[in-house]
C-alpha cells in the first residue's frame, strides 16, 4: 500500500513541478494545487496507513492516528484559500496586463 501511495505522490509532484515550470499563469496555478495535493498524501502516508479501526468510537483496541487527518484538513483549507486568491490574481493580471504568459508579463512596463 505504501508503495502505491509513494508512486501516487511522486506522480502528483512530477506533474505539479512540470506545470509550475510552464509559461501560462493558469497552468502554474493548477501546478501549485497539484503539488499541495501530493504533499497532503505524503502527510497521510508518513503517519502510517490504516493500522486499525476509526478513532474515538472505541470499538477496537487499535485505531488509526487521527492527528494527520486534522493536519491535512487544516492544510486543505489553507491551500483552498491560497488557490482561490491565485486564480483571482491571475485573472486580474490578465485583465490589466493583457496576457497570461509569464515572459510577456515580465517585459510589461508600468
Amino acid at each position, binding site marked *: 500500500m505504501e508503495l502505491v501511495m509513494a508512486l501516487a505522490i511522486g506522480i502528483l509532484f512530477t506533474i505539479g513541478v512540470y506545470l*509550475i515550470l510552464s509559461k501560462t499563469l493558469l497552468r502554474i496555478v493548477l501546478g501549485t494545487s497539484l503539488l*499541495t495535493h501530493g504533499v497532503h498524501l*505524503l*502527510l497521510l502516508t508518513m503517519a502510517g496507513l490504516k493500522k486499525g479501526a476509526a478513532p474515538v468510537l472505541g470499538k477496537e483496541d487499535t485505531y488509526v492516528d487521527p492527528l*494527520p487527518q486534522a493536519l491535512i484538513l487544516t492544510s486543505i483549507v489553507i491551500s483552498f484559500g*491560497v488557490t482561490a*486568491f491565485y486564480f483571482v*490574481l491571475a485573472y*486580474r493580471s490578465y485583465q490589466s496586463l493583457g496576457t497570461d504568459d509569464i515572459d510577456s508579463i515580465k517585459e510589461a512596463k*508600468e
Partner: protein
Amino acid sequence: MNNMLVLPILIPLSTAVILIFFKEKIRLQRWISVVSSLLTILVTVLLVTRVHADGILTLQMGGWAPPYGIVFVGDMFALLLVMTASLVSFAILLYSFSSIGEKREKYYYYTFFHFLLVGVYGSFLTGDIFNLFVFFEVMLISSYALISLGGTKLQLRETSKYLLINIVSSTLFVAAVAYLYAAAGTLNMAHLSQRITEAGQGGIINVIAVLFLIVFSLKAGLFLFFWLPGSYSAPPPAIRALFGALLTKVGLYAIIRTFTLLFVNDSDLTHNLIAWMAAATMILGSLGAVAYKDIPRIFNYNVIISVGFVALGLAAGTQDSLNGAVFYLLHDILAKALLFILGGLIISAAGTDQLSGMGGMIKKYPLLGWLFFILALALVGIPPLSGFAGKLLIIRGALDAGMLTLALIGLGSSFMVLYSLIKVFRLAFWGSEPGKKSPAVSIKGATAVAAGLLVLVIAMGIGADPLYAFVSQAGDVLASPAEYIQAVMMKE
C-alpha cells in the same frame, strides 16, 4: 492568569474582523486601529515584565496537556520580539494614515494590516510546529493581499512571483512537518526536542533539518533571497516598511527557534551550513546594496545583509553571539521600519525613487536628512546607537567560536551598509537640486512618527545595559533548551 498570552493574537484578530464592517468610515477605522495597537503594546509590555520576574509562561489551548494539545509559549525571546513588533507596527500604522491613500484604506488595508500582525505574533508565540505553519500562512495570505492591494501593473507582476515562491516553500514546509512527524511522532516543539535528543540526530533528522532550513530561509531571505528585492519594491512605502521590518524577521525567528531547540545535536553539519549561507547572504546583499541606484532596492538589499548578520550570530552558537542575535534582531526591527519610512518620505518629497533624480533636499527637509543620517550610523553600529551592542556581541561570539573569516565578512558588510546609505544621503540631500522642481509636499506628521522611532533607536542604544538583562534572559533559553522544555512539559 497565563491566559493573557493569547491577547497579543486576540486583539488584532478581533480588530481585523470588526474593521470589515466599517468599510467606508475611514476615520473610525483609524481610531479603532490606533486603540487596538496601543492595547497590544500595553499587553506585551506587561507580559515582558511578568516573564522577567517569573520565567517562561505557557498556555495550553483548551486545557489539553502537552504534548497532545497546542501550546503557546511566552519565553523572553518571543515576547521581546512581539513587543518590538507591536511598537513598530504602531509607528507604521501612524505613517500609513498620511501615505497609504484613501482608496487602499477603503479596500480593507487596515483589516489586512491587523491580520498580518496576527500571523506575526502567532508565529512568535506558538510552541507547536504545525501551528507555526498555520500562523505563517495567516501572515503570508495577508501579505499577498497587501502586496497586491491597489492593483498597479508592477504590483500584479510581482505578486504572482511572490505568491508562487511562497506556495512552493509552504508545500515544502508541510512535507518537512510530515517527515518530522514520521520520524519523531510528535509536533510539540519541546517534546520534539526531547525525542530528537533521546534518539540522536542521525541521517534522517539531518535531512529534515536541512529541509526546514530551506523552507525558513526562503521566507527569511537567508541566501535564498532572489525574490525579495523585486517583491518588496512593489507595494507603497508603508507596506514596504511593514514587510521589511517584520516578515523576514519571522522567518529568522523560525530558523533560530528550530536550530536552537530541535536540531542542536549535530551542529557541525547544520550550523556550518547556516554559517556559510550567512556569509553568502552578507556578501551578495552587500553587492546588491552597492550596485543599485534606486532607493527601494538599496534598502531591500540592506534587509538581506542584516538577515545574514543575525544568522551569523546563530551559527556561532555561543552564549554571547545568541544574546547578540536577539539584540540585533530587536534593533533591526526598529531600524528597518524607520529606514523604510524615511525612504518613503524621501521618495514622496523628491517625487521619484531614482537617486539620479534627487539632490539638494537638505535645504527643504533638514530634519528628514539628519534623521536619515543618524539612522544610517545606527544601522552601521556606531556607539551609542542601537546597532552597536548587537554587532559587538555577535562579532565577539563569532571570534570565540573560531570563525575569523565570517566575523571579517560581517564587519565588511557593515562598511557596505555604511557606503550604500551614505551614498543615498549624499546624492539625495547634498548636491544641487535637479532641474525639474518637484512640488513641495508636507511631510510633517510622518516626520514626527519617524522622529519618534529614532528616539526609540537611540534609547535602545543608550539603555543597552538595562535592556541586556532582558536580552540575556532570552539568550539563556536559546543557549540551553532544557529551560524551555521544562516550562512546557512540566505536567509530566
